[in-house]
């Protein structure tokens, strides 16, 4: 029973062809000139220069680092960050990755709707999500109004971990779901099944090795995303007196004894953590199985328990997204904050007020920034990803992730220090900051997809006389298209509601929607905050309707597999 599988696995699992010794001449054959220059200039301008300039502030005053180390809270803060980030990452991988694999290997009904539901947490800014969860489930929340339930244990390490995990589920889901569509693993799997391997053995020996680059990419991204988040710890960890590195950074920014040096030194800690994570994970970043192209899909019979999986995912979406969204709605439509959300107290005033002022122009500006950032970064991601198979490229990948591993405020400081001479007061400085901060979100899925591909088809095209670009176009592009779309979506959605970076870079006339939300929240106006966040969600959901309706769009994204896979 297991013998054939083992043989098959041995034949397939092993060093990736590209990293084998014979790789150099083959990859040179596929290279397009000038990429290195473009990518290196991009990394230098968007990452190395701003981050280097920022770190110079602490390198110039090394005593500050020593002072920070002596602070009593430091150890606890590092521990808090590691515990909640590791926990959050594991949770995100289990839920997001699990759903992606389930959608791929099982005939789960209503996939498009469920996929949309899994992405809900990134439609609104993290601190608003954290707020909506507390408003839904803790004291005097919606759940208490409706069924008398309150879960005040959410304040603390456990709640912080869970919510950080929930926030990263979309990242894990998108990257791994895209990887499942990147190439058909059909041949290898069919072979395994035909040789008598039971489904779980197939999953373990074929599927996981195949998805390994994507899982690794998602792990690294989820971890640095958790570690650099302040929105969730601000709402859930501070009341429990549970420090993390980001709460320390925020304190240092609220009251600075050393100017910028303290927050920067603390951010450097997060950079070190990110580099460690990348160094460790990149060892596993190549696929154990090389996949070729879209092969004939597996035929999967629908079984009753597949529906149960759909119900389970649906339940998860309801608990972490839909119900908190209802909480948000209840605040937005209750006339006076603090009154119980019964129909007698309903009013649409807040929803109307939310559209006044800078909300609409801010939204349009954010939309422009998000489209530009997503498009440019997908291109950059493809260019840099083509280099990522070699060692230098991998170091580059880690470098690219640095601005995403620190809080948005630190990125804003870095960008102000380097670019305010040229771009201050323009929307371009915000765009540059987004390009710097979110590059990793585009890079990880694309690099993962590329490192899964076998170079054979491209080599065949080259051998048949195609130019390097042509070879890439016919063989690589179709295979990585789902990952490019995942990358585009991640950058687009994160840029759309971004608020910490833009709140330090905006001037009157360049407010983003995030700045508008933040200004309402900092004024303590929860009703308006909720109303704006609600509009944001509604608009994005409306944009998503074509995705759910159009079969073609879905098949590009890879969520339409329902019957055919």
């Amino acid at each position: 029973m297991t013998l054939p599988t083992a043989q098959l696995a041995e034949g397939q699992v092993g060093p990736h062809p590209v990293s084998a010794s014979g790789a150099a001449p083959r990859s040179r054959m596929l290279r397009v000139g000038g990429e290195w220059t473009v990518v290196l200039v991009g990394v230098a301008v968007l990452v190395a220069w701003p981050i280097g300039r920022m770190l110079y502030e602490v390198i110039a005053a090394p005593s500050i680092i020593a002072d920070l180390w002596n602070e009593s809270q430091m150890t606890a803060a590092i521990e808090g960050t590691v515990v909640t980030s590791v926990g959050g990452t594991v949770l995100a991988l289990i839920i997001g990755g699990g759903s992606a694999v389930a959608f791929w290997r099982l005939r789960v009904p209503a996939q498009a709707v469920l996929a949309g539901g899994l992405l809900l947490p990134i439609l609104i800014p993290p601190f608003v999500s954290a707020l909506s969860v507390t408003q839904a489930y803790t004291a005097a929340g919606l759940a208490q109004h409706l069924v008398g339930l309150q879960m005040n244990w959410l304040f603390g390490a456990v709640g912080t971990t869970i919510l950080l995990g929930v926030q990263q589920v979309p990242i894990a889901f998108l990257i791994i779901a895209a990887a499942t569509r990147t190439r058909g693993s059909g041949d290898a799997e069919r072979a395994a099944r035909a040789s008598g391997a039971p489904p779980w053995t197939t999953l373990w020996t074929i599927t996981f090795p195949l998805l390994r680059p994507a899982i690794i990419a998602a792990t690294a991204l989820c971890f640095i995303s958790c570690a650099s988040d302040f929105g969730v710890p601000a709402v859930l960890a501070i009341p429990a007196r549970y420090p993390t590195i980001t709460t320390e950074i925020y304190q240092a920014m609220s009251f600075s004894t050393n100017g910028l040096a303290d927050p920067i030194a603390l951010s450097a800690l997060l950079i070190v953590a990110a580099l460690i994570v990348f160094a460790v994970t990149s060892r596993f970043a190549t696929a154990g199985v090389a996949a070729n192209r879209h092969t004939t899909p597996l035929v999967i019979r629908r079984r009753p328990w597949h529906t149960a999986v759909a119900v389970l995912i649906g339940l998860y979406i309801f608990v972490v997204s839909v119900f908190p969204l209802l909480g948000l709605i209840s605040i937005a439509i209750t006339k006076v904050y603090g009154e119980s959300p019964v129909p007698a107290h309903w009013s649409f005033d807040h929803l109307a007020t939310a559209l006044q002022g800078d909300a609409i122009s801010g939204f349009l500006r954010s939309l422009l920034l998000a489209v530009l950032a997503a498009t440019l970064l997908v291109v950059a991601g493809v260019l840099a990803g083509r280099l990522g198979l070699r060692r230098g490229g991998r170091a580059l990948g880690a470098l690219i992730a640095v601005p995403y591993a620190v809080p948005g405020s630190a990125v804003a400081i870095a960008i102000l220090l380097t670019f305010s001479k040229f771009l201050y007061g323009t929307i371009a400085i915000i765009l540059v900051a987004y390009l710097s901060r979110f590059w990793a979100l585009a890079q990880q899925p694309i690099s993962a997809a590329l490192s899964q591909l076998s170079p054979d088809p491209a080599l065949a095209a080259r051998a048949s006389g195609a130019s390097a670009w042509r070879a890439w176009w016919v063989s690589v592009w179709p295979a990585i298209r789902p990952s490019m779309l995942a990358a585009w979506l991640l950058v687009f959605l994160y840029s759309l509601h971004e608020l910490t970076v833009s709140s330090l870079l905006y001037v009157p006339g360049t407010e983003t929607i995030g700045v508008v939300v933040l200004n309402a929240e900092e004024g303590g106006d929860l009703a308006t905050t909720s109303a704006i966040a609600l509009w944001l969600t509604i608009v994005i959901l409306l944009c998503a309707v074509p995705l759910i309706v159009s079969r073609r769009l879905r098949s590009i994204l890879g969520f339409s597999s329902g019957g055919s896979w």
Partner: protein
Amino acid sequence: MKRTLVTVIAVSAAFGLAACSSANSGSTNSSSSSPSPSSSSSSSNSLPGSSSSSSSSLSSSAPVETSSTSAETPPPAGKATIYAAVTAANGTALQDAFHTAFPNETISIVAAGTGKLVTRMEAEEKAGGVRADAMLLADPTVMPQLASDGILGDYVPSAASQLPAGNSGQGWFGPLDFYNVIVYKDGLTPVPKDWSDLTNPAYKGKIEIGDPSYSGTTLAMAAEMPKLAGADFFTKLKANDVKIVQSTNTVGNDIASGARPIGITLDSVYRPLKEKGSPVTIVWPASGAIPVPAPAAMIKGSTNPVAKNFLDWLLTTDGQAELAKLGYSPALDSSGAVPAGTKIATVPFQDLVSQRATILGDFTKVFGG
């Protein structure tokens, strides 16, 4: 490998570039903090993007196109950029009120929290100069750092001499005050009268306060409370299962929602809630509300007459009335924002900054974290 080598070279080149530019900005920094900022501001004149929204920032030698209007001649006309720790709505209201009072003059307010604005000013200063003319913040404890960063100017309106002693410091003045007070949700019994009432077991699990690590206004509360309500006040409050949240805004909201129906927050948090109809009531504690001035100041290097006029205006009857209208307690009080006869504690702000670590240490000793 060759590629690795190229990467290493490129990256180190970029870092070198960074070091270069920081050395540059270091020198600009020192020149701008020297009394005659001509060299730094002449370089900033050529900045693209600074012409529209912050045209008159660093206007000691104002940008060429507006130099005729913002030169130091008696009838000031033109624009100024103010970094203000107010809500966007209040920022717009201040802009409009000032423009109504001085139709030739326009201020442009960049609204954000104090911490964000301080971070922003420090980064801008290192990058060649702060892009604003004046500031109105919500936390006096950041001012000594801003002074040592070379960001604080020294202009103070003449009317500042009428302010209470606590409302002026080196290079700044406090046109309005925040008061730490007790707020509760209507219907709560018994009704509190003073700070020490919060230790009443009847409020067990119902109290919320802000975290002094995140703002000077709450730091003042943490420092004064042991003096006003007994050295063991926080120990008793902990026994009463108090909840500590990051911001006083959250305290206000949680009181209004009933999640925690009583707490210590600011009068400026209470008023907008009350105005919108939330069922909350303010208590001015018998042993004294804890005042914290909101510092206003010019930014070093700016001599923008509109910005100076704005700071002057804040202390006029007109300006003070506008501040009261926005829910603040004006410092030259005639508005009744603070009820007559209210006892106000005296807070030594200089000590607050120097003793911050001790105050937070004591607080942490009780609450952990």
